[in-house]
C-alpha cells in the first residue's frame, strides 16, 4: 500500500528524508499501521521528541486519529512528547545492578549533576534517570547514555563519561 501525498506536505513538520524513510518502513508491513513504531523512532531521531504537529502528520500518513498516535507515544518509555535534554543518562537499578551498587552510583551521579532522577541539568545537557533491567546484569553497575551502554562502572568512570557529554 502506498499512501497518498499528505495534505501538509508543503509546511511539513516531518522532514522529507524522514518521510521517505517512513514510506520504506510502511512497505515492509502487510498493514500500514505496522510501521508506526518504526516511524515514531524515525521522527524522534529528528529533534529528540515527537511534537504535536509531527504527531498530527503521522496520523495523516497512517490514516489514524492523532490521539491514536499519542496513546502509543505515551505507552512506551522511549518515546517523548516534549523537548528533551541533549543526553539521557539512565542508571539501571534493577536487582542484579542494585546488588552491585547501582543505587549508590545513582546517588553519586545525582550529587555530581545536582539533579534528582527525572530532572534535567539547568544547561539542558543531561536528563538523569533510572531504568529497569537493560540486559547488562553481569556487567553491573552500568548506565545507558542515549543509545550507548557503559558497563562495569564505578563512580569515577561514570562521572568522566558524564563530563565528556557536550
Amino acid at each position, binding site marked *: 500500500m502506498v499512501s497518498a501525498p499528505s495534505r501538509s506536505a508543503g509546511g511539513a513538520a516531518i522532514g522529507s528524508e524522514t518521510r521517505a524513510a517512513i514510506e520504506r518502513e510502511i512497505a515492509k*508491513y*502487510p498493514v500500514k*499501521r505496522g510501521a508506526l513504531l518504526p516511524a515514531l*523512532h524515525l521522527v524522534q531521531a529528528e529533534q529528540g521528541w515527537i511534537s504535536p504537529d509531527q504527531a498530527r502528520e503521522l496520523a495523516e500518513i497512517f490514516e489514524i486519529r492523532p490521539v491514536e498516535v499519542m496513546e502509543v507515544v505515551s505507552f512506551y518509555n522511549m518515546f517523548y512528547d516534549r523537548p528533551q535534554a541533549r543526553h539521557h543518562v539512565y542508571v539501571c537499578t534493577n*536487582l542484579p545492578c542494585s546488588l552491585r551498587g547501582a543505587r549508590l552510583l545513582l546517588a553519586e551521579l545525582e550529587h555530581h549533576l545536582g539533579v534528582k532522577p527525572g530532572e534535567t541539568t539547568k544547561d539542558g545537557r543531561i536528563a538523569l534517570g533510572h531504568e529497569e*533491567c537493560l540486559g547488562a546484569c*553481569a556487567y553491573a553497575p552500568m548506565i545507558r547514555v542515549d543509545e550507548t551502554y557503559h558497563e562495569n562502572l564505578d563512580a569515577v568512570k561514570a562521572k568522566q563519561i558524564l563530563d565528556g557529554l557536550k
Partner: protein
Amino acid sequence: MGLEAPYVTGYLSEHFADPAFGTLDGYVAKGGYEAAKKALREMSPTQVVDEVKAAGLQGRGGAGFPTGQKWSFMPAGSEKPKYLVCNADESEPGSFKDRILLERGPHQLLEGILIGAWATGAEKTFVYVRGEYAEPARQVQRAIDEATARGFLGANILGTGFRHDVVLMRGAGAYICGEETGLLESLEGKKGQPRKKPPFPAQYGAFGMPTTVNNVETFCHVPHILRRGAAWFKGIGTDKSPGNTIFGVSGHVVRPGLYELPLGTKLDALIFEHAGGVPGGRKVKGVIPGGMSMPILPAGMLDVPMANEFLRERKTMLGTGGVMVMDETTCMVRVACVISYFFRDESCGQCTQCREGTGWMNKVVNRIERGAGNPDDLDLLLDVAGKMEGATICAFSDAAAWPIQGLLRHFREDFEAHVKLGRCPFPESFAL
C-alpha cells in the same frame, strides 16, 4: 568492557569471541547455512517439524513450550499469509543471553528463522528487538541485509524458489511487549497490551494471520539440530529437558557472566564451580534461578538440576535461565521492594488484579522495609498475591505474585524481623 563471550561455550556460542562469526562469510566458514540448505533442498516442512519434535527442543524464552509442537499448530495449506515472529524483546531482569546471540551470532539466528519459515510455510518473519538493544539491532539488520544480498533470504532462496523476508522492528521500552500477544499488538503499531487467548497466535496472530512466536535462543538451536540430528540433541541435558542453554549469572558472584551448559547442570555447580562462588568468602543466602519472575531458592536448595522437572518440585522454574545470586548480607525485604517496584512500573494496566495488586504489594513491602509495617502485612501480601494469580489476561500478574510468594515462603523471618524491630535489621545489605 561490557558484553563478553560466555566463560563456558558450547555449540551455540563457541565462535562468539571471533568477530568474523558475525559476518556471512565467517558464519559459512564454520558450517553456517548448511542446515538450511539441507532443510530447503532435501526435507519436507513436515520432516523438519518432526525432527525438531523428536529433538524435544523447548522454548527458551521462559515458558518452555515444545517448539516442534508449536510449529505444528500452524495451519497447513492456509490461504492466508503466515508469519513468524522472533521475540528479541529480552527484558526479564537477570537475563542477557539473547543480547549476545543477536550481537555475536546474527546469522545463526537467521538460519534458525529460515528453517522455521520453511517448516511452517511462513512468508515473513518479524524480529522484534527491544528498543534499548541498539547495537544488537544494528548487527541483526546488517546480517539481514547481507543474507538478502547473497540469496540466503528474499526471493528464490538458495535456488529453491522459496521466498522469505525478515523485517526487524525495534520496540520502545515496555517489558510487557515480551509477552507474545503484547508483542503482536506492538508489532501492529499499538499499545503493547496482551490479547485474550483463545484465539492463539497460530490461528490469529500478527495482523490477524497465523503466526508463531519463538524466542531468539530457541531459533538458534534449530540449525544445530538439523545439522547433527535429533538424537545428538537428545543426548545433551536431561531426558525431559534436552540441549544446552546459555545461563546468565549475576549478583554476588566472583565471575558474573554467561555460561553455555547443558540443561540439568546443578545450580550449585553453576554458582561455585563456574561463577567462582561469592566474593569475600561470604555465604549464599538465596538465588533466583530463572529471571525475576521466578520464585527464589534458599541456600539449602541449590543442589538442584537446572531443568523444569526438578525446579518445579521446588516451586520455581527455569524461566530464562537468568541466575541472580544474593549473599548473606542481603535483606530479602529490599529484594521484594526492587521486584515489586519493577512489576508495578511495568504492568500494562489492563486488568484490575494486576494494576492494583502490583501497586499494593509495592506499597506494603516498602512500608515493611521502612520499619512501618504491622504484623498483618505478611498475610496481606500473601492475600494480594493469591488474588493476582490466574485471574488476568496474561501471565504478568502471576509473574509479579510468584517472587513475593517465594520470598515469604523461604525468608518470612526477614519480614517478621522488620516488623518486630521497626527497622531494617540488615545494615550491610545492598543499598536501596
